[in-house]
């Protein structure tokens, strides 16, 4: 057994004051010029950038620590196994899970949701059962459940949103009945930034003994996550939205629930013993980590979490909230611009449309001045349908963005309007 110090969560208290210029200097990519202009990266909700300490961690792993894990008895395999395990413990602390075995490394949020669909859904959801989802879900928390519903003859019920992009909680409550067997709930809307009141929604579902999966892909970079306090059954997010590498994410699951589930993928590492007659599955988390996991990415993920927690999630959120307020005030002054998603409680996501101009034209013209925004349906077509728009432009801010970058976005929007005048 690997000896890792007892995981004790550190409170989210920053050790240093928020120094924006110092933070920016940690991100080499922010020095990039695009079309001769300084990069203004406002597509952080799609993927965030990686700071030098995380890049260095990946380089160090590949340079001096790499081997396959959980197998050989040689030096490198032991080092890699230990570092991989430490990353798991870092994630455990980050979400305040009771035990490290409740953290499963997946390839990302989508993979984690599919794991729950196959591991929990296919075992416990039957014909006639109902699954509650919300209008705000990303396609990754819709499609797997549709696949399950089709296979099992189960039904999907959807929580509506109001004009501001907030869930209608009364309607959510009305959806529950004795057939309700699962709730899939996005913590923060990727398309609008709405922060959902998940704690009370989880508590309500538990009154009906219904487990709740939280898609935290957009929440974990901005909100302190405490899975014990939330009492969610599953929580998932991806590393690459938290300044980590692509190809890795985590699924937190309550140990008892994970143990009751069937495996998702079969293969090496997820077994205790194999004969052609029978396979005995390994214990959690290994039961759900078939094959060689993304070792380097997981270790980089741990380093990214260390980096973010040093700055402090609350400090990060406070700066982003300033940027959102600043940007919202400015964009409201531009005629013809409509903000999509005006929830009282939202992260630093500014989704908007400009009258008569298609989002892709907006994105292409902004790009000419180095401004990177996302344009499209944001893998959330039900949200687009709700607002009766095919697509929006979305600026999403990170803690390394600055107010002059908001100004560059606004200048770009004015140029777009001029081009199409």
């Amino acid at each position, binding site marked *: 057994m690997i000896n890792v110090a007892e995981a004790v969560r550190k409170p989210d208290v920053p050790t240093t004051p928020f120094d924006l210029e110092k933070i920016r200097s940690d991100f080499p990519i922010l020095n990039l010029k695009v*079309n001769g202009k300084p990069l203004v990266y406002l597509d952080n909700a799609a993927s965030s950038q990686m700071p030098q300490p995380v890049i260095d961690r990946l380089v160090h792993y590949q340079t001096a620590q790499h081997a396959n894990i959980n197998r050989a008895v040689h030096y490198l395999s032991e080092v890699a196994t230990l570092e991989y395990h430490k990353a798991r413990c870092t994630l455990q602390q980050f979400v305040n899970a009771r035990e490290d075995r409740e953290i499963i490394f997946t390839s990302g949020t989508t993979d984690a949701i599919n794991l729950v669909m196959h591991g929990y859904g296919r075992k416990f959801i039957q014909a006639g059962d109902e699954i509650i989802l919300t209008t705000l879900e990303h396609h990754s928390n819709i499609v797997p459940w549709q696949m399950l519903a089709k296979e099992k003859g189960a039904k999907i019920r959807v929580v509506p949103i109001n004009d501001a992009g907030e869930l209608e909680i009364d309607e959510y409550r009305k959806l529950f009945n004795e057939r309700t067997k699962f709730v899939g709930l996005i913590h923060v809307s990727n398309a609008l930034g709405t922060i959902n009141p998940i704690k009370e929604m989880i508590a309500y579902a538990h009154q009906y003994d219904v487990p709740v999966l939280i898609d935290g892909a957009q929440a974990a970079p901005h909100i302190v996550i405490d899975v014990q306090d939330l009492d969610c059954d599953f929580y998932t997010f991806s590393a690459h939205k938290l300044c980590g590498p692509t190809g890795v994410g985590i699924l937190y699951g309550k140990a008892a629930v994970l143990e009751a589930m069937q495996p998702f993928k079969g293969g090496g590492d997820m077994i205790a013993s194999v004969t052609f007659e029978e396979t005995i599955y390994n214990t959690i988390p290994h039961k759900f980590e078939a094959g060689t996991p993304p070792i380097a990415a997981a270790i980089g993920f741990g380093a990214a979490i260390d980096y973010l927690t040093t700055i402090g999630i609350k400090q990060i959120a406070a700066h982003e909230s300033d940027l959102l307020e600043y940007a919202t005030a400015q964009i409201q002054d531009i005629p013809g611009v409509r903000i999509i998603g005006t929830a009282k409680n939202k992260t630093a996501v500014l989704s908007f449309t400009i009258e008569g101009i*298609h989002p892709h034209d907006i994105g*292409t013209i902004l790009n*000419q001045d180095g401004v990177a925004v996302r344009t*499209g*349906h944001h893998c959330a077509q039900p949200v687009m349908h709700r607002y009766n728009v095919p697509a929006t432009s979305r600026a999403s801010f990170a803690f390394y963005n600055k107010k002059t970058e908001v100004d560059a976005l606004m200048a770009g929007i004015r140029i777009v309007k001029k*081009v*199409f005048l």
Partner: protein
Amino acid sequence: MMHTKSLYQEVILDHNRKPRNYGTLEHPSHHAVGHNPLCGDRLDIALALENDRINQIAFQGESCAICKASASMMTAAVKGKSPQDAETLINEFREMAMGKLDPEQPNHLGHLTVFSGIRDLPTRVKCAILPWHTLHAALNSMTGASTETNDDLIQSVSVKTV
């Protein structure tokens, strides 16, 4: 390096503002709907073939400026032409959009070369090509020719003949 602003030239902006042949036909002989799942753009093209000529053509739909201008200029370019000549333009336009045709070399594209800058914007190539692929589908609904192609860019644009 590309110059996006030069892509949004007056001629393209003009066709976006005042699209030619915008609307529907009462009695089309051929009709197809093109769809770009990436951005949700949708284009409906109807045409009336008479004596082996595209006598009337109309389009409508919801799309970005690049797609709308491309559709507008395409309808103007193929009106009065034979399906065979239209297919030549379709091929040349596709090749140009994907950077496989040098607009300086002899071609039949004429004003349509204003779209040549699209080759530097891979994510927007589909926007410019969608009308042409839809026209191809509409024309071939007559012969039953396949709209399948080995080209990835084209494959990701789904087209339904109606």
